[in-house]
C-alpha cells in the first residue's frame, strides 16, 4: 500500500530528504543547547570573568541562529515536499481516473471519487508533513536526550527507566482505547449529519405534514446518543495531559531528591548543580518527544483509512485495454451484434444482455423501446465500447470494436448519454467538446439541426452565455438539445441518442428527427425513447425486454406482431397524446 503512494513523491524526494537532514541538525543543536547553558550558568555562578560569560553566551546565540536556520529551512522544504507530494498524488489519481472505463467508474461512485481526491489527499498531506517533520525529530530527540542525560547525569538518569515506560504505556493505553471509540462516534456523527441534510432537503415534506415536533424529538434522541459517546471518548483522551504531567513531576522530584543527596554527599565531585538543571531540561525533552511519537501514531492510524482509499483508486486497472496495432479508421456506420451476451461485472449473476444478434446497415435509423431495466442503454453502450461484451462480438464498419483505437472509435460513434451533463463555461465552449476547432458557422449549423439555435438566440449573450455548473440555468429540454448539438459537432458516423429528448416537446422532437433524415442521411442513428412517437418512423424498431430482443420490425409490422409494442402504443395514444386534431 505504502509502495503505491511512495511512487508519487518523485521530484519531492530531495526536499523530503533535506527536511530530514535539517531537522536532524536542528535537533542536535537543540540537545546541545542545555549542555552549553549549564556551562554558562556555572560560569556565572563561579564568578568567572565577564569575557568567559560573554564567550559562552555568544556561542549560545550562534547556536540559536543555527537552530533557527535549520528549523526555518526545514520548514520551507517540508512545506514544499508535502504540498508537492499532494499535488503529484492528485495528478496521478486524476490521470488514473481519466483512464478508467465505464465499468471502473461504476465501481467507485463519483461522490466517493471526489472525497478521495480532496479530503483523503488532504489527510495524507498533513500526515506526510507531520511524518517528515516529527518522525525523525522525536526519536532523535529521544535518543540524544537519553544519551546526554546519561553522560551528564549518570545515576540520575535512572529516573527515566521508571518514567519512560510509564508514559509509553499510558499514552499507548489512551490512544488504543480512544481511537476505536472515536471511530465509532464519527460514524454515528456522519449519520447524524446525513439525517440533518435529509431534514433540510425535505423541509416542505416536514412542514407539509406538520412534523416539526416529531423531527425535533428524533434529532434530540440521536444527538443525545452522540453526546454520550463523544463524552466517553473525549474523557479517555483527556487522560493524556495528567499522565504526561505525572511523569514530568515525578522526574523533577526524583532528580531533586536523589540529585541533592548525590551532590552533597560527594561534595559535587560526581554530580554538580549544573548537571541537575540540565537533567531537568532533558527530562522535559525526553517526555515531550514521547508525546509527539504518540501523536504521530494516532495521526497515522487515523489517515490509514485515507491511504487505503487512495491506493484503491491508484491500483485499479482499467477494464478496457487498447489492443496492439489498432485499426485507426472507421469505414462506415454499419453495426452488427453477433451472439452478444453482456454482464456488468464478472461476478454478476444476471446477464444484462443475452443472445443479441443484429445487423444494421450504415445510414439506418434504429428505434429502441422497452421498460426500465430492459437493457436498452446496455445495448447501445457496447457500440462505442463503453463496456466490453462478455461473449460474442460487436462490429462497427465490419471490424470488431475491440480492434479499433478507442479514441478513433469513440470519435466516430457519438453518444448522447441519458444522464448527460454540461460543464461550466460558455455554450460555445461546451459545444466545442465535440470538435475543438469547430468554426462559428459549424456550431450554428449543428444547433439548427438540434433545434437549439432559436432559444440560444433569445439569450442576451447568445453563444457566449455562461452555463453554470451542472447546467442549472437552462431548462431540461434546452440542456438535452445542447447535448445533441455537441454530439453532432463530431460529425459522427453513428449517432446514439439515449432517451435524449424526453424533456423536449413532441413537435420539436419531430423537427429534430426530420433534420437528421434530411441533413445527415449517411449517419446511422440509434434512438432510445419512452415515447412511441419518437421512434415510429424509424427504419427498424427494436423492442427490448429483460435483456433480450423481444420483437423487431417497423412500426406497422410491430403493431401487428408485437404485443408489448401495441400495449405501449395504445396506452400512450389514449393517454392524451392525440396530436392529430
Amino acid at each position: 500500500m505504502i509502495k503505491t503512494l511512495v511512487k508519487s513523491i518523485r521530484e519531492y524526494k530531495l526536499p523530503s530528504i533535506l527536511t530530514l537532514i535539517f531537522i536532524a541538525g536542528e535537533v542536535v543543536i537543540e540537545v546541545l543547547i542545555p549542555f552549553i547553558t549549564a556551562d554558562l550558568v556555572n560560569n556565572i555562578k563561579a564568578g568567572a570573568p565577564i569575557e568567559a560569560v560573554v564567550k559562552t553566551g555568544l556561542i549560545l546565540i550562534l547556536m540559536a541562529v543555527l537552530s533557527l536556520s535549520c528549523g526555518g529551512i526545514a520548514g520551507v522544504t517540508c512545506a514544499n515536499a508535502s504540498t508537492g507530494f499532494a499535488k503529484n498524488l492528485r495528478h496521478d489519481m486524476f490521470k488514473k481516473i481519466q483512464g478508467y472505463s465505464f465499468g471502473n467508474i461504476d465501481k467507485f461512485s463519483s461522490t466517493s471519487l471526489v472525497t478521495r481526491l480532496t479530503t483523503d489527499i488532504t489527510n495524507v498531506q498533513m500526515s506526510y508533513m507531520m511524518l517528515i517533520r516529527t518522525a525523525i525529530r522525536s526519536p532523535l530527540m529521544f535518543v540524544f536526550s537519553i544519551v546526554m542525560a546519561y553522560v551528564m547525569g549518570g545515576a540520575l538518569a535512572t529516573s527515566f527507566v521508571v518514567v519512560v515506560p510509564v508514559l509509553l504505556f499510558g499514552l499507548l493505553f489512551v490512544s488504543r482505547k480512544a481511537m476505536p471509540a472515536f471511530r465509532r462516534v464519527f460514524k454515528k456523527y456522519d449519520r447524524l449529519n446525513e439525517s440533518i441534510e435529509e431534514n433540510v432537503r425535505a423541509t416542505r415534506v416536514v412542514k407539509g405534514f406538520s412534523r416539526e415536533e416529531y423531527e425535533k424529538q428524533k434529532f434530540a434522541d440521536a444527538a443525545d446518543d452522540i453526546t454520550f459517546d463523544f463524552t466517553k471518548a473525549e474523557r479517555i483522551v483527556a487522560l493524556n495531559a495528567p499522565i504526561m504531567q505525572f511523569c514530568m513531576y515525578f522526574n523533577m522530584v526524583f532528580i531533586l531528591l536523589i540529585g541533592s543527596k548525590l551532590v552533597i554527599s560527594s561534595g559535587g565531585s560526581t554530580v554538580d548543580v549544573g548537571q541537575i538543571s540540565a537533567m531537568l531540561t532533558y527530562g522535559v525533552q525526553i517526555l515531550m518527544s514521547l508525546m509527539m511519537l504518540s501523536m504521530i501514531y494516532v495521526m497515522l492510524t487515523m489517515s490509514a483509512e485515507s491511504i487505503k482509499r487512495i491506493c484503491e483508486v491508484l491500483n485499479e486497472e482499467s477494464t478496457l485495454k487498447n489492443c496492439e496495432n489498432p485499426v485507426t479508421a472507421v469505414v462506415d456506420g454499419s453495426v452488427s451484434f453477433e451472439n452478444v451476451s453482456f454482464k456488468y461485472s464478472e461476478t454478476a449473476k444476471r446477464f444484462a444482455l443475452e443472445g443479441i444478434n443484429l445487423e444494421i446497415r450504415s445510414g439506418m435509423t434504429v428505434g429502441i423501446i422497452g421498460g426500465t431495466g430492459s437493457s436498452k442503454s446496455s445495448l447501445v453502450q457496447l457500440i462505442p465500447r463503453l463496456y466490453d461484451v462478455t461473449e460474442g462480438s460487436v462490429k462497427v464498419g465490419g471490424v470488431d470494436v475491440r480492434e479499433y483505437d478507442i479514441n478513433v472509435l469513440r470519435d466516430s460513434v457519438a453518444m448522447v448519454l441519458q444522464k448527460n451533463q454540461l460543464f461550466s463555461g460558455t455554450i460555445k465552449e461546451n459545444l466545442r467538446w465535440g470538435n475543438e476547432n469547430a468554426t462559428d458557422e459549424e456550431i450554428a449549423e449543428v444547433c439548427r439541426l438540434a433545434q437549439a439555435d432559436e432559444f440560444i438566440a433569445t439569450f442576451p449573450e447568445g453563444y457566449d452565455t455562461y452555463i453554470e455548473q451542472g447546467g442549472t440555468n437552462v431548462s431540461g429540454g434546452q440542456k438535452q438539445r445542447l447535448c445533441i448539438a455537441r454530439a453532432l459537432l463530431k460529425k459522427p458516423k453513428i449517432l446514439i441518442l439515449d432517451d435524449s429528448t424526453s424533456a423536449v416537446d413532441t413537435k420539436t422532437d419531430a423537427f429534430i428527427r426530420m433534420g437528421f433524415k434530411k441533413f445527415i442521411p449517411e449517419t446511422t442513428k440509434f434512438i432510445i425513447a419512452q415515447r412511441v412517437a419518437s421512434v415510429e418512423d424509424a427504419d427498424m424498431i427494436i423492442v427490448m425486454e429483460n435483456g433480450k430482443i423481444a420483437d423487431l420490425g417497423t412500426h406497422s409490422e410491430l403493431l401487428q406482431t408485437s404485443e408489448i409494442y401495441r400495449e405501449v402504443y395504445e396506452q400512450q395514444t389514449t393517454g392524451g397524446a392525440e396530436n392529430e386534431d
Partner: protein
Amino acid sequence: MKTNNMPRPNGAQPPMKRKLNFGALKRVLKMLFSYYPVLLPVAIACIIFSAIASAIPAIFNQQVIAAIEEWYISRDWAAARSEIVPKIVVLAVLYAISLMAVIAHTQLMAIITQGFLGKMRKTMFNGMQNLPVRFFDTHKHGDIMSYYTNDIDTLRQLVSQSIPALLQAGIIVTSVFFIMLWYSIWMTLVVIAGVFLMLFVSKKIGGGSAKYFIRQQKAIGKTEGFIQEMMSGQKVVKVFCHEAKAQEDFDRINNELFQDSRRANAYANCLGPIIMNIGNVLYVIIAMVGGLFLLSGAKNFSISGMAFEISIIIPFLNMTKQFTGNVSQVTQQINSIVMGLAGAERVFALMDETAETDEGYVTLVNATEDENGNITEDENRTGIWAWKHPHHDGTVTYTRLTGDVRLHDVDFGYTDEKIVLHNIDIYAEPGQKIAFVGATGAGKTTITNLINRFYDIADGKIRYDGININKIKKSDLRRSLGIVLQETNLFTGTVMDNIRYGRLDATDEECITAAKLSGADDFITRLPDGYETQLTNNGANLSQGQRQLIAIARAAVADPPVMILDEATSSIDTRTEAIVQRGMDRLMQGRTVFVIAHRLSTVKNSDVIMVLEKGRIIERGSHEALIAQKGKYYQLYTGAFELE
C-alpha cells in the same frame, strides 16, 4: 459530499485576519455558564489552581538548588537533609495538588464541551425546524450543513482547548510576571522587550501566512469545484475522448493550488523555530545581562528588595523560559480562538433567524355531527373534522371541514419589490379538481406555496371553508392539506416508517391499506424485507417511480380533504408511470385537489384548468371549453410548447 470529521492536527491552521469578536465570546461564555452553573466554575477554579500550582514550584525548585549549593561543600547529607527534604516534600505536595486539579479540569472540560456541543446542536436544530420555508429556499443546503459540521467543530476546539489553554497560559504568564518583578524589575524589563519582539515577529509572519492561507482556501475551493464537476461528468468526458484536455486543465488548477499551499505552509512552519529561538536568545541575553549586573555590582530594583545575587539570576533564567513559552502558547491559541469565534458567530446567526410566526387560533378537531347538522367536538378519531373557532366574546363555533378553498385577488412576491403573482382568483369547491398548467416560472408552484402558507400573500385573501387562512393555526392548516411533491423526499428508516410519516398514529394495517390504494403494495411486498426494508439516502435503492408510489401512500395515509399534487416530469417507463398515474387518480378521488399538471391526461380529467403565464391566469375553464377557445391552452395541448 460527505464531510470528514476526523480531528485535524493544529499544525497549520489558517490564521484568518479577523478581529476578535467579543460579543460572540461573551455569548458563548454566558451559554456555558447557564448550562453548567456548577461544573463550569469548578472546572475554571481547577484550571486556575493547576496553573498557579505549576508556577509556584519554580521557587521551591530553586530553593532546593540553592540549598544544595550551600551544603555541598560540607558533604554532610545527614545535616542537609533536614533542610532539603521538607522543601522537596512541599514541592511534591504542590505537584500532587496540581495533578489532581489537572485531572479534575480535563475530565470536567470533556464533559462540559461535549454537553455544550450537544445542547448547541439541539438548539440549532430546534430553531431551524421553526424557520419558514423561505429560509431553506434562500440558503444553499451545503451552507446550512456547514453550521452543523465545520462551525460546530471549531466550537469544540474553542471550548475544549483554546479557552482553557489561554486561561492557563494567561495565569502562568501573570504569576510568573509578578514573581519576576519580585526578583528584579530591571531584568523583567529586558524580558518584556524580548517578548514584544516575539509578538512583533509572529504578527509579521502570521500576516504573510494568513495571506497565503486565504489564497490557498480559494484555490482549494476552485480545485474541489473542478473535481466535482469532472467526476460527475466523467462518462461524458470519456464519450468525447476529452481525457487529455481534462487532465491539462486539472494540472493547471492543481499547480496553482500547490503554489499557494506551499507558501502558506512554509510561513506557518517557520514560525515555530523562530519563536523558539527568540526565546533561546532571550535566555542567553538575560544570563549575560544578569552576569554583567552581578559583576558590575549594579543596584537591584525589585519588590522584594533583594540585591543582585546568584540566587536571583538562576531562578530568573528559568522563569524567562516559562514566560516566553507561555507567551508563544497564547499567540498560538489566538488563531484558533478567532476561528472558533467566527464559527460561533455563524452558529448564532442561525439561532437568531426569525422563526416562522403563527398567530392562528382556529384549530382542527375531531368532531361528530348529528342529524340536525350540529357539530360537537370529539376526543377520538371520528373521520369527521371541524374547525374550532373561538371568538372574542368567549364563544366557540365549529365549522365542518369540507375542503372549500378560495383565493380572492391574491398578489404575491418573494420580495417586496418584485410581485410574481397578480390578481389570482380561484374557487375550488369540495371535491373539485383544479389543474395548473403553464411554462416554467409561470407561477404554478408559487400558488400552491401560498395555500399551505409556506409563504404569506402580499395582498388579497385566501379562505378555507370560509375561514381566512391567516386565522388558522399553521400546523392544523397543513395537516388538512396533503402534498405530493415533484421531487420525492424519503427519510432514513423502513418503508413502513416512511408511509406512517403521513399520520404517526396509523396502524400497520392502515399503512398497508394506503399502500394498496396507491399501488405501492405490489412492489413493496416484493422487496427483500417487505415493509420492513430499510431505506437510506433518500431511498437510493428504489427507482424513481417506486419512490413516488411511497410518497403517494404517505399522503394517502394522512387522508386529508385537500391535496396538492405536483406531477413529476422526469421520464419513468410507461408501465410504472401507468401505476403511478392510477395511484394518483385514486388519491384524488373525493378530495379537493390542486394539481400542477404535466400530463395531458391529468389536465383533461380536471374540473377547472388554470393556464398561467407570467404570474397571471390567462385562461380558465374546462378542457372542452378551452380547446374550443383555441388560445394558449389549445397550443399547449397540440404540442407546440413544452409542458413543464
